């Protein structure tokens, strides 16, 4: 017996045309203890864009993404998703918004107890009245889209890392979301697979007029897919916006912090190790 789908009141739904602001973040601050992980972040994402958030490890990329999908309440600031402030929403209202976007987790977050097919079918079964035979067909289509035709009956544990990421992508796109959020979709993949996943992200969004918000620190991938880039800083510029612009503007931006990151150099303003006198002081104490 199939469980009846739970109805979530959809209410009036504004359709966003290409170029309209679909996501707007204003003065976002996230504090953990005495650490200011996100510091006054503001940016806009327009419908149809592939917006990439990049930055070094620990710069708050994932925290920002968690705030954007409503998995975490920011300390202050506002996030307008589809024109509504999600930071002031209760979980039930948030569910209405959640049906309009898809999230592709860094490691796929596939349900280990379900087959690949069941994983992709779950959002459809839960949120639509679609006939089971049609769901089966949609699952096949989504798997074909990510190049995994015939894998419906495999368990996630039988797949490689790259395959799991692709299944995660297929599941995120099961309900044809208006925005696809993607957390480091290419980290840990070989160059060919990276290119494949990048192409899939573009196929799943740009071709159908959807928006993509991708968190990444893979420069090749970032410049391949982005229409606009937001760079977050770490170290002394922890959680601040270092730069924002098109890939061309980012390449030309003279900011040494940004250039060090884009070129992947060990030496530069991004602090990894202490300065010599600071190190001596740290080792010997102030005396």
């Amino acid at each position, binding site marked *: 017996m199939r469980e009846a789908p*739970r109805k*979530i009141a959809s209410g009036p739904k504004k359709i966003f045309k290409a170029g309209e602001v679909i996501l707007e973040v204003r003065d976002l601050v996230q504090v953990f203890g005495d650490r200011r992980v996100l510091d006054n972040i503001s940016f806009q994402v327009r419908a149809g864009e592939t917006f990439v958030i990049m930055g070094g490890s620990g710069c708050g990329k994932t925290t920002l993404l968690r705030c954007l*999908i409503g*998995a975490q309440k920011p300390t202050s600031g506002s996030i307008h998703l589809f024109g509504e402030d999600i930071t002031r929403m209760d979980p039930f209202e*948030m*569910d*209405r918004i*959640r*049906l309009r976007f898809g*999230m592709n*987790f*860094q*490691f796929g*977050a*596939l*349900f*280990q*107890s379900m087959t690949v097919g069941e994983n992709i079918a*779950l*959002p459809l079964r*839960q*949120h639509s009245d679609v006939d089971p035979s049609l769901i089966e067909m949609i699952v096949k289509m989504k798997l074909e889209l990510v190049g995994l035709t015939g894998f419906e009956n495999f368990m996630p544990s039988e797949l490689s890392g790259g395959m799991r990421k692709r299944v995660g992508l297929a599941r995120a796109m099961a309900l044809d979301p208006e925005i696809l959020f993607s957390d480091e979709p290419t980290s840990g993949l070989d160059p060919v697979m990276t290119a494949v996943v990048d192409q899939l992200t573009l196929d799943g969004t740009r071709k159908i007029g959807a928006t993509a918000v991708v968190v990444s620190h893979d420069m090749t991938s970032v410049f391949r897919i982005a229409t606009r880039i937001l760079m977050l800083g770490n170290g002394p510029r922890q959680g601040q916006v270092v730069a924002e612009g098109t890939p061309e503007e980012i390449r030309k931006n003279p900011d040494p912090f940004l250039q060090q990151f884009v070129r992947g150099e060990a030496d530069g303003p991004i602090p990894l190790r202490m300065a010599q006198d600071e190190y001596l002081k740290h080792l010997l104490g102030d005396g």
Partner: protein
Amino acid sequence: MASLVALSVGFILAMQASTELGKLGANAFIPDLVSLSLLRELGPLLIAIIVVGRSGSAVAAELGTMKVNEEIEALKVMAISPTRILVVPRYLALMIMLPILTVFGNCVGLAGGWAVCVGTLDMTSSFYITHAVQRPELWDLYSGLIKSVVFAHLIITIACYQGLGVTGGAEGVGRATTASVVYSILWIIIADAALTGLFFFVL
């Protein structure tokens, strides 16, 4: 596993009772003692403790692993309530199955007592069955079943709470699993004491 434990408990009760009651020439009361102790107390308690070890820990570990793998987060992001899809079915399953398993355990325990009484104490089967079945009142059975429902509630609530509250990777899953077993057993025994007091002293 549950039947083996229940059978052993039946053996133990009958054997222990025979050593003491035998001195008083009261072996005839052994079936009464076995059936009353099983129905009211040992059946629900021991079956619940086995279920804690077998199912409570499994639920905590499974939900904990799902939490660590971001599967719980993924459900929430898909606007699917983890409580509705993961907790409620497990809760209902245990609330129904633990009392059924308890009744089964009671029967096996009574069979264990029968084996000792008939095998070593020269009792006839009809004597054992008549006493073991006639002596307890329906309330003795019901009080045990009410206990098992309360235990089921405690086991599954603690297991789900611990599992969904996991932080810190695989190590956290191990910690939550241990905690779910320890707290479940602790609360089951405390609840048992409270319910026994309520059923047989207050009411």
